[in-house]
């Protein structure tokens, strides 16, 4: 397979991956927060913190993968 085809596949992979990575982070945060609030009788602010953390993680993960792919594609 040509190197160009590999590059297209890599970019396609990232494009398909982004919405899941960004969306699942806050969802995971929400459910973790909900569990913590119920388990330890904490305030609802814990859910907000967990959602923010999840969102940040999703964004960081996406940035890391995009950076990696673009560096690989430039090689």
């Amino acid at each position, binding site marked *: 397979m040509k*190197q160009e085809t590999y590059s297209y596949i890599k970019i396609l992979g990232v494009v*398909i*991956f982004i919405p*899941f990575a960004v969306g*699942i*982070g806050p969802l995971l945060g929400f459910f973790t927060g909900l569990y913590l609030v119920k388990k330890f009788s904490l305030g609802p602010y814990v859910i907000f913190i967990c959602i923010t953390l*999840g969102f940040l993680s999703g964004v960081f993960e996406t940035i*890391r993968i995009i950076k*990696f792919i673009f560096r690989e594609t430039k090689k």
Partner: protein
Amino acid sequence: MNADILYSLLIIAGLVSVSAIACRRGALVPGRMQNAAELLFGGIDDFICGILGPKGRRYTPFIGTLFIYILCMNLAGLVPFMKSPTSNWSTTLALALCVFAYVQYSAVRELGFLGYLDHLFGRPRGIVAFSVFIPILMFFIHIVSELIRPISLSLRLRSNIWGEDMLIGVLSGFGIKAVPLIVFSMGIIIIGAVVQAVVFSLLTTIYFALVLTHEE
């Protein structure tokens, strides 16, 4: 037994049989079967080593097996009276958890336990190392990122294949009139199945690369 498990076992049996036949008599001048197998494995090896470098050859069997297995499971939905096992979240989550466990194991083996902890804390150096807040924040972000990976990897594959299976199911309900549409959809589904298998393997390779190349 659950139908998805049965189909998965059938696919495993088929793949084992084909591999055994292809590798039975390894000849210097390969036969048709051996030639096809060598072409496939060579392509997968090139793809993985292109991203991970020569070190990546160690992971070719794992990622290559994942690719072929997922591809066959994706395409199983096109066989009459069968259903893609990958349209069930349990199947894809199991695969993603295997990837998750192997990536963590490789990370600890490659970096050492303390090195891996350092990686999770975001490699704090200089003045950042003395601030407690940033390394702890990075630690939590890294932990959540690691937990996101198996879920996003499995949900993406499951959702796409489930959608393809549903499309074929709905179109089949229209009867003989929908045959041209079904044939057209089958073409798209074959492309989708290959792309999804490639993307799963690609993301697995990237997860290894992020660990092996000490990516930050």
